[in-house]
């Protein structure tokens, strides 16, 4: 016959003073795990969320990122009038030739400098990326040295307020509007006119080309056409696929999270073990009584394991609750694909919290295994005689 669950629950709460420290300890470990992993999730989401599934991104063969790719004007000229490319209401092809430049700019408040990705877009560029919305000011006028910056970047960098002018090299660009990228990679960019960018940064070539395909079949046809054309040293892929593949930045954070959690959990497991041993020590007579009543050894082991798991579960819940306020907090770091400052949010998902709770339960089980076995092996008569 199994011991009722009520017994375990009551035990956890009766000895609450002794178990509090362990619960808090496990809670902290789970909180650290959830928070660091939420950084990785946030980073991955910022890139996975980017792109329109109807768009095709075209870069140079061998380039790992848009910013290190070059597309010459001759190569670009061959693309817009291909039959697979969609047209807008006026019959113009929906194609944008982008210029990507890394610019070093100072952060707000003496916080050092960082690289910012400046994207020069063609007039169709805005239409091709519907997730980018203007939230303040106005759009830039092609031909003028104007730029629209991401709202989230504006919070981090100096001179990005509306109406401000920021210097790059010895040229000035004025900020005329703020954009919002809808929690995508575009939240880390500054947009301006492509040809203006080419003249400003003396670029001969474009960096990449973005095109809207008529439909899914046309997208496949377009990709094949470009990849197999010998004149064009270019490769094509769906825009969403390009951004999803950018996982280089999130991976080290994920590894860090796992390492930290494992290392901290060892300490927490020892703490749980200590608590459970003390618990067994305090209830020696109780355990002897249970054995005399007829409960089997394995029932006692199971009971202590459940108690340990319950303890840890409470700790895990505490940890998750501790970490929730950080959800949605915006921060930034250097992204390894683009080598520029990438803005992202702490993202705590239900799946992540479930993983944290599971982790806590495993810690509790590991910590209570040895004490549970000890409880089961207590000789009945000596246990009954214990004080």
């Amino acid at each position: 016959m199994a011991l009722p669950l009520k017994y375990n629950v009551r035990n956890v709460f009766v000895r609450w003073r002794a178990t509090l420290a362990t619960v808090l300890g496990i809670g902290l470990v789970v909180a650290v795990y959830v928070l660091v992993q939420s950084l990785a999730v946030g980073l991955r989401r910022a890139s996975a969320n980017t792109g329109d599934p109807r768009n095709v991104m075209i870069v140079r063969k061998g380039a790992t990122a848009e910013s290190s790719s070059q597309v010459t004007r001759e190569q670009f000229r061959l693309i817009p009038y291909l039959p697979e490319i969609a047209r807008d209401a006026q019959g113009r092809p929906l194609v944008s030739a982008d210029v990507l430049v890394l610019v070093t700019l100072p952060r707000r408040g003496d916080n050092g400098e960082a690289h910012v990705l400046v994207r020069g877009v063609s007039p169709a560029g805005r239409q091709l990326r519907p997730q980018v919305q203007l939230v303040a000011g106005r759009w830039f006028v092609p031909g003028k040295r104007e730029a629209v910056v991401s709202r989230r970047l504006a919070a981090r960098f100096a001179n990005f307020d509306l109406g401000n002018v920021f210097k790059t090299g010895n040229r000035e660009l004025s900020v005329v509007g703020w954009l919002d990228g809808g929690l995508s990679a575009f939240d880390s960019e500054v947009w301006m006119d492509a040809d203006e960018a080419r003249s400003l940064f003396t670029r001969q070539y474009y960096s990449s080309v973005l095109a809207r395909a008529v439909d899914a079949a046309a997208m496949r046809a377009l990709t094949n056409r470009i990849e197999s054309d010998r004149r064009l040293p270019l490769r094509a892929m769906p825009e969403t696929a390009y951004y999803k593949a950018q996982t280089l930045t999130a991976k080290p954070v994920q590894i860090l999270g796992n390492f930290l959690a494992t290392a901290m959990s060892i300490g927490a497991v020892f703490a749980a073990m200590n608590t459970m041993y003390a618990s067994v020590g305090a209830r020696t007579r109780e355990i002897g009584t249970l054995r005399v009543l007829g409960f089997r050894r394995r029932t006692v082991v199971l009971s202590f394991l459940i108690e340990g798991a319950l303890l840890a579960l409470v700790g895990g819940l505490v940890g998750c609750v501790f970490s929730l306020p950080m959800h949605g907090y915006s921060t930034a770091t250097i992204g390894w694909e683009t080598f520029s400052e990438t803005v992202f949010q702490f993202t705590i998902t239900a799946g992540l919290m479930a993983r944290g709770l599971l982790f806590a339960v495993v810690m509790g089980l590991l910590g209570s295994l040895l004490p549970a076995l000890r409880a089961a092996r207590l000789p009945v008569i000596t246990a009954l005689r214990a004080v």
Partner: protein
Amino acid sequence: MSIPTFIIRNALRNRRRAALCILSVAVSLFLLVILLVTLRELTLPLEDVGAALRIVARSRISIAVLLPARQRAIIEGIPGVEAVSPFSWFGGKYKNEELTTFGQFAMDPKLLRPIFGEAKMPAEQYAAFEADQTACVVGKVTADKYGLKIGDRIVLDSTIYPCSIELKIAGVYSGTIDDRNVLFHHKYLDEAAGTGGLVGMWWVKARSVEDMAPVTAAINRAFANTSAEVRAETERAFQLSFVSMWGNIKILIGSICTVVVFTLMLVTVSTMGMAIRERFQELAILKALGFRRRELFACILAESFGLAMAGALLGVGGALLLFTNVSISKLTQGIFLVFEVTPRIMGTAALVAAVLGIVASIAPAVAVAKTSVVEGLRTLD
């Protein structure tokens, strides 16, 4: 039995609990040391011996923008400049690895010894490097990692230039703080990539320490208001500018350290609490025998302190042994070169352990002091 023996015997009464406590402290301090060492490696890059006389000039827009080659003659003409070499990041991938952890740079081979004097190579390897345009020199760490020898050929696919190059190894250098790089001829890059006339950066050697500031200012002035403005800074400032790109990493690692220490404190406090609670009756007996409160404090404190310091010794000592005997560059595949556990870091960890020991003994000591002898004798648990 003397007092110290009494303390030690008490601490080891429940050997399992003492062991678990010490292990817990040891693991947490080990983690703390790793975090502090990593933070130091990321934010305080190692400095080469010759760095004091080197200046790096890059485009003022950003390091990703190329500079015109004609700037070289102008820089060479500045008084106080001993040598100038182009230095372009190739950004190549080797053997289709997802992450290539060594850098490749194109430079003027004749200026390898004058500018980077710390790199040590036999004289004939310098000559071989200069003689063949497709030759390269490889750092010892990379050569060991891939088992490369003189005469081997390596193929690098650039991620930023539209080309791949094949290089023949003419020499292996060592003695700098970063023995991972591959250096080859800039002329070869110009021909292969078709970017003749453009360089990534200029590395300048000043004649003396007094020349450093005037030369840096002169380089900045020389190209002000031209189409290719330059930012010249000392090599150290250049290294540190990369660190600032990490952003708030100091805060992140600092917060994690705080949490680790806090968790550790919870563990030690609860352990000491448990230990003292079990011995309450005994402590009451000691009180009845005439031991004063402060002597009891001292016993509890010594026990707590002893456990904490034993854990510190294990944890910090373990970290020290690990990092001096295991090659970190092999472990992290070349991302980190060396983990140095400085005396400062060891002191911080020991201090944390000491404070822990003291704090963990406060609550039990206060409880012992407050309870009267009669009440103490009456406790059963």
